[in-house]
């Protein structure tokens, strides 16, 4: 199947070249970081985690959101998602690879990374995060490969894939829950020490992930013959709408508990995040943008006449992804550290080298995604004789295992 | 065969790459083992020479875990002698200059030992062949 990625238009190769170039620049910058140390980033003694871990947190959500497509399709036989499922699974693979890369560039002594396996530490949530993330990657690779090979051959997929698909559903939820547990069990950081952190993560994941899928679907429809179908995209829009509402609701719940109880330990972090603290407010403009984008997205998503127009849905999806990327990334991670346990306000902002490395990793993920989607398009065209596809009925035809369950 | 030209070219490139260490090292690497500075007075290490030659890193790793993790201090050698488990305190008492002993051999063997990042008092020390040549 990989040979499908080796033939393509000039646009395809240009995209791969650009992404590869970004990866090369990012890699070269990473070599510099290896030689000098993490001091080239904006991190500090008071803010030990920043851009890299923020991207990890956001991307784990994107990876987990594949379940939002897999669950309706495989568990409830929602046929409209027939063509979307593979896009979701491939997006999950790309996202998990980026997560693992972001963890790798964040550790101070990467040559000792094997210690994570040589000295397993089941009391550490980071240990479990490593297990569930790698397991999810393997699961998605195995599942997508098996179902795709079957599709290409026109046969039902092998029987052992079905239990794996069922397993991937709670596993998807678990990767984001475990990542939330990294934060929500720390007595040292009252901003994160809340039971609603894991539900917040899941809600924002189920908004941002499907929103990304909407954008990718619309893009694929424009640049290739692959079309997940209008019903699938519309349903994704509904999922994004509900998830975004729940997410904003959860944020409001957090704000209420912190502000109404007026406990300084909790209020301080929210004050820093949205208003600035003691004259320090680097994140305030970002959060204003995030809030504005969230409001815009909610308006566009909650009015059905607006949401059903795909152009508007695209704008709303961009707003959702942007708003949540800010909120869950830098917003959540950095604010946990300000003020510090000793009450100091030391801010954080990523440096240029740090940003270049992050961009390089995003480019690597983009590279993986492009290649995988190219394969998906290629296989689909081949399986259906190269012609244009309809929707529901054709989807059922290409997914004969639906009849098995 | 199809694409014969491309295949032969590819094989040629592969052959060059895979033999690179050989023709890169000609005239640049050192053929014979390096001259190691032996300790001035001591004739016998804490364990037999054959053992030390083969397994000194295992010994040092065991010392590392014993001192740091088990709070032990004393190594009782196979001949019953007691020694303090310390790279700088015991080993370097006889092998005074690691640059002329440890690092020289490690550079020749191409095995980087990064003990010297921490366990030595000079400001900088060449810890690998690359750095010995003055590379960053």
């Amino acid at each position, binding site marked *: 199947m990989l040979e499908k990625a080796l033939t393509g238009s000039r646009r395809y190769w240009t995209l791969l070249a650009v992404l590869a170039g970004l990866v090369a620049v990012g890699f070269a910058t990473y070599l510099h970081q290896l030689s000098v140390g993490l001091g080239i980033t904006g*991190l500090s*003694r008071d803010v*030990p985690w920043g851009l890299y871990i923020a991207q990890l947190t956001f991307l784990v959500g994107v990876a987990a959101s594949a379940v939002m497509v897999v669950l309706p399709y495989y568990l409830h036989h929602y046929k409209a998602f027939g063509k979307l499922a593979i896009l979701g699974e491939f997006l999950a693979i790309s996202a998990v690879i980026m997560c693992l890369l972001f963890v790798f560039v964040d*550790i101070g002594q990467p040559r000792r990374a094997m*210690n994570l396996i040589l*000295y397993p530490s089941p009391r550490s949530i980071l240990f479990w995060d490593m297990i569930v993330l790698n397991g999810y990657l393997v699961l998605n690779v195995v599942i997508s490969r098996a179902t795709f090979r079957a599709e290409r051959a026109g046969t039902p997929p092998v029987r052992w894939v079905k239990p794996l698909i069922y397993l991937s559903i709670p596993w998807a939820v678990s990767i984001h829950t475990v990542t939330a547990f990294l934060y929500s069990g720390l007595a*040292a950081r009252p901003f994160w020490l809340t039971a609603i952190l894991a539900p917040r993560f899941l809600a924002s994941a189920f908004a941002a992930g499907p929103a990304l899928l909407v954008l990718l679907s619309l893009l694929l429809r424009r640049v290739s013959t692959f079309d997940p179908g209008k019903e699938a995209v519309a349903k994704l829009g509904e999922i994004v709408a509900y998830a975004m509402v729940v997410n904003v609701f959860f944020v409001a719940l957090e704000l209420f508990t912190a502000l109404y109880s007026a406990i300084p330990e909790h209020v301080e972090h929210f004050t820093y995040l949205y208003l600035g603290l003691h004259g320090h407010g680097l994140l305030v403009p970002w959060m204003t943008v995030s809030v504005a984008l969230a409001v815009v997205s909610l308006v566009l998503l909650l009015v059905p006449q607006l949401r059903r127009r795909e152009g508007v849905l695209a704008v709303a999806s961009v707003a959702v992804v942007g708003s949540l990327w800010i909120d869950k990334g830098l917003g959540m991670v950095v604010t946990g550290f300000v003020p510090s346990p*000793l009450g100091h306000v030391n801010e954080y902002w990523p440096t240029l080298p740090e940003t270049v490395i992050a961009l390089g990793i995003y480019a690597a993920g983009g590279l993986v995604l492009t290649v995988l989607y190219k394969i998906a398009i290629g296989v689909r065209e081949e399986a259906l004789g190269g012609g244009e596809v309809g929707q529901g009925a054709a989807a059922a035809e290409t997914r004969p295992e639906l009849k098995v369950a | 065969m199809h694409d014969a030209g491309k295949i032969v070219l590819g094989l040629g490139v592969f052959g060059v790459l895979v033999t690179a260490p050989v023709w890169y090292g000609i005239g640049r690497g050192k053929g014979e083992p390096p001259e190691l500075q032996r300790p001035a007075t001591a004739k016998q290490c804490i364990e037999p020479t054959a053992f030390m030659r083969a397994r000194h890193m295992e010994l040092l790793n065991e010392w590392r875990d014993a001192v740091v993790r088990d709070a032990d201090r004393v190594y009782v050698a196979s001949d019953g002698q007691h020694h303090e488990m310390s790279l700088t305190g015991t080993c370097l008492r006889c092998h005074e200059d690691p640059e002329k002993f440890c690092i020289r051999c490690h550079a020749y063997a191409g095995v980087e030992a990064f003990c010297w990042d921490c366990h030595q008092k000079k400001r900088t020390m060449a810890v690998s062949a690359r750095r010995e040549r003055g590379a960053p």
Partner: protein
Amino acid sequence: MTMRRRSFLKLAGLGLAGASTVPVAQALVRGARTEAGPDALKGKRWAMVIDEKKCLTRGGCDVCVQACHRAHNVPAMANPRHEVKWLWKEQFGHVFPDRVTPYTPAVMKERPTLVLCNHCDNPPCVRVCPTQSTWKRADGLVMMDMHRCIGCRYCVVACPYGSRSFNFEDPRPGLRGEPTDYPTRTKGVVEKCTFCAERLAVGQRPLCVEACEGIGCGALTFGDLGDPASPVSALLRENDVARRKPELGTSPHVFYLL
């Protein structure tokens, strides 16, 4: 073709599994073993008591900090964001925020208070370390293994007291003077006070305590809480003591006489 590949993979898997049963850690040499030093201080539960009043009698004194940082090659980093410190003074209002009121005069709120790793009974840093590079010793010390640390900084995140420092760059250029015998660290690892474990192992008390006694102040007392006759036990019996953030359940073992 499929069958041959499958059986090859099975064979390879079995071979790998078989090879991994070869014991990795072989006994080193017959008769060789390691043991504790003859003078090692043995305690059931090491702890420290800091007498604030005594400490404050000498304005601007920091002999304890100097002694510790000098002997342990703690660097002075040019970039304040990369600061490394094991023992230092903070304003009282930041260390004990629940003991200041809106009416506390500034001079009291800002009085310098010594802070360091608290060597907790229930340390969150130990819980989160994914490689057990930091662990709790039976005698109470929370230790650091600089060789194993991968520099993930989860312990720095998890410490409620801000006691830990990460080496963002090579610390050697920041050394104040020539390095001592204590190993320096390398970039990418976390470090903190270890109650001078290397000195306890040879029968000596922590440097900060000795430095403070050396100038005749004696604000720092170190000892074994498992020994009712030790000075720390006596101090805890006879005085009202405070600990940092006790409500978090970490059970710190650095006690303050305020």
